[in-house]
Each structure stands twice: as C-alpha cells, then as structure tokens.
C-alpha cells in the first residue's frame, strides 16, 4: 500500500516538487546521522509556509507562532520514525495541520483574533482603494478591517473546510497533495473546497462582485 502511494505520488508530483523532495531527503538523512544542525535548513525552508497555514487556521499570530515551533519540535523528535513513504514536506505539513486542528478543537470556544500586517511587497489592489472610498475610510484602516472580516469568515468555516481552503488558496498546494496531507480522497478535497468557497461567498457577498 505504501509502495502504491509512493509510486502514485511520484507520478503526480511536479518536477520542482520532486527535486525539493530529494533535497529534503538528503537533509533528513544528515539529521538522522547525527548532524542536528542540518535540521535548521529545514526550519528555514518551511517555517514561513507552515506559519502561514497555521495562522490562517487559527487567525492568531501568537498561537500560530507556538504551533509552528511545536510542529518543528515534533518533527525533530520523531524524524527517525519518518519512513519516507511521503515527502518530507507532506509529512511536516501533516504534523503541523494535525497540531493546529487539535489546538482548535481544544479551544473551540476561545477565539482571539490577532492579525498580521500585510507584506509591504504586495501591491495594493485597485479594488481596495475603491472599497475604501466607498466606505469613507482611510485605505490602511479599511485594509485592516477587511483582514479582520476575512479572518472572521474563515473562522465560521468548519476546521476541515478551513484547512482545505487554506492549503489550496493560501499555500497553493494541489488537490492530490492536500488529499495526502489530510489523508482523504481528492474527491473529498474538491467537495470540501467547493462548499468552503460557497460559504465564504455567502458570508462576503456584500464585498464581492455581483
């Protein structure tokens, strides 16, 4: 079964992903051989992506920071149990997503928004200026409110739907990769993605194109 999964993964993986997976495998082998410092390369490589996923799942930057660190610690502690059936990044994503989901289940009733600032590299879209003018607010203030609104809409989704849309829209993973991380079928991923988008559209319809 693992062999089938590995072969299918190789067939669907893009060349870039395959190169990335091979490079990760070398670093993992180094860490296993006792070169603990080599793990830092994996941390630097994946910390932003892992953080972004967890932040979009929790909508809280402090929780996201702690959970990201915990995910790396857990991966470091159990790196000897990493069998190589999946690529390292899938395995690490699975650890991170499962940790975040467990945290969300434990703290279901507690939601504190703690939003991040937008990256300065991003160009401000035109529609943001227009919406800010419509709302009669300053652009920065409106952008902050909009981020808050988007986080609230995300938190209204179920954990599974939120995870799927985060992995697909925020991190840009494929359906197959999401299915592997969430240990479900691609059909399930597509279905969850569809319903998550429908729900977001319904919740944000006053902002969206009609």
């Amino acid at each position, binding site marked *: 079964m693992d062999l089938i999964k590995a072969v299918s993964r190789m067939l669907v993986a893009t060349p870039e992903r395959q190169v990335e997976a091979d490079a990760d495998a070398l670093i993992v082998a180094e860490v296993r051989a006792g070169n603990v410092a080599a793990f830092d390369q994996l941390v630097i490589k994946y910390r932003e992506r892992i953080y972004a996923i967890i932040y979009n799942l929790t909508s809280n930057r402090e929780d996201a920071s702690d959970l990201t660190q915990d995910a790396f*610690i857990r991966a470091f502690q159990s790196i000897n149990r990493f069998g190589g059936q999946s690529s390292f990044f899938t395995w690490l994503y699975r650890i991170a997503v499962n940790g975040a989901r467990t945290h969300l289940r434990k703290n279901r009733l507690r939601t504190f928004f703690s939003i*991040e*600032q*937008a990256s300065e590299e991003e160009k401000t*879209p035109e529609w943001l200026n*227009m919406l800010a003018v419509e709302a009669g607010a300053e652009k920065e203030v409106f952008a902050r409110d909009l981020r808050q609104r988007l986080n609230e809409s995300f938190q209204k989704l179920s954990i599974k739907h939120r995870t799927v*849309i985060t992995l697909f*829209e925020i991190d840009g993973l494929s359906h197959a990769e999401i299915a592997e991380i969430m240990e479900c079928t691609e059909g399930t991923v597509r279905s969850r993605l569809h319903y998550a988008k429908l729900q977001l559209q319904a919740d944000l319809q006053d902002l969206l194109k009609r």
Partner: protein
Amino acid sequence: MGSAPQQPPSRPTLEELLRFKRAERPAPEFWAEFDRGLRQKQLAALMKRPQGWARVRPVFVRSLRWIAPATAAVAVALVVVQMPLSTASRKAAVEVVTLPVRTVPVATAPVVAAAVQEHQVETAEVQASTRIVAVAPIPTPAVHAEAAPLAVSAEQRSERYLPWSTVSLSELGEGRTASRDTFVSLQTMGETPRPRTSWTSRFSEVAQEITAEQSTGRVLQLTSYDLPAITETQPVAVRVASTGYASSENYRHGIRDRDFRDMESRMGSSSRSGLAIRF
C-alpha cells in the same frame, strides 16, 4: 448590438480577496524571535527525559519479541498437560458410576430387627474411587419408627453425592458396620445436595410404608428425590441387580414404576450400574 453589462470595477472576486489574505505575513524581526523560541524548545526537548508511556514504550516493544512466543508456548503446554488430566477424570467418573453394589437375593436376605431398633448412625470407610458419606438408619417396618438423622461427614457439605444409596440389612445387622459398597456418594454426579431435613423426612415417610415382609433385602434410601405420596394400592417397581425393572405382587408398597424410572434418569444411572433395591 447591445454591449454586455459591465460589472463595476470596484468589486473584488473571492479569489482576489483570498489573495489579499495571503499577503498577511509577519515582519522580518518576527523570525528572529521565532528562531530563539524554537532553539529553546529544541534544547528542552533534547534535555527532557521521556515520561510515562514514551519511557516504557521501547522496553515494551523490545520485550514483545519474546513475550509473544513465550505466551504461545505456555498456552500450548497448558493444553497438552490438561488433555490427559481431563481424560483421566472422565474415566474415573465412569468407573465410579459402574461400581458394583452387592445385592442380597430377596429370598435369602434376612430381616435384621436389631438394626432397625437402635437407629444408630455410622460412617463407613472411604474407598479410593468412592466416598462414603453417610449411613442411614434402618427403619423399623414393624413399629413404624421415625428414621434418625443421618450422619454426614464434614466433607459432604461441600460435595455432590448420589441422591440415593442402598443399605443391606443383613450387613448392618451384626456389628453394625457397613460394607464398602453399601453407602456410596459420588462427587461427580450432577445432582446438587438438598438440605438434610428434606430428604431425611422423605426417607422417613417411605420407610414407614415398608412392612416387615417387604424389608427382606435392601432398603432404598432416598436422599434428595421428592417422592409422591405412596399408597398401598399402587404397584411397585423393583430394580433387581442388572436385570431391569420388575413389578411384583410381593412388593405392593413402594415406589411407582414411573417415579422409579424418573428417579433413575435423573440420577443418570444405567441398567448396568448394578444398583439394586429391595424392600
């Protein structure tokens, strides 16, 4: 040619909104703090000794290598040891059931009056495969005496025994010692013991119905069988050694035929058991 209605350019799509959300990233200084925290956690994880299940797990996994085969070997050994034992116990049970009981011919068996009068209770010897538990008093047919309570050994209270046994009047007559095969209680039979008061009183009732003429051979001791009331007009079924049942005019008082058969089936005795009843 009508032009297609144009959407106002100010409204974003959902994908654009999600792209806007994707732009939320922490400042570069955040990562310095993040790395420091991660380093501390990493060191703590390295220094921390495993606790609970994590500590026991490696030992458990290592011990599984020999626990499983050892358990299987012990189970097989137990089965091998138990098989001959259970076969032997079954054989012993069969032997016990088929123990012959000495019978005294009806015609030649004397009536022992002395045994009837004294109502003494004795305990017989213990045989290897049988257990002697009680000696019943010999009823006095002529005087209709009440049967004395049976002597029951301490062991008997916790063991199962045959609900009935036979006593030879002739053997009890002189010296009042019971022969080995006179009073037999078997531990392996299925009957559960009843309170002594019940079966002694029933025995007493039956014994009172037996006349002196009828008590020429052995006397049936009923220990746990609930006999119906016996009337003088009912025919009597007598089991003579291994010859089966016989109704006779000489045994007018006693147990009805169907009750006798019912009793025997409940006791599990067969026609080859050699048990005999005489009145």
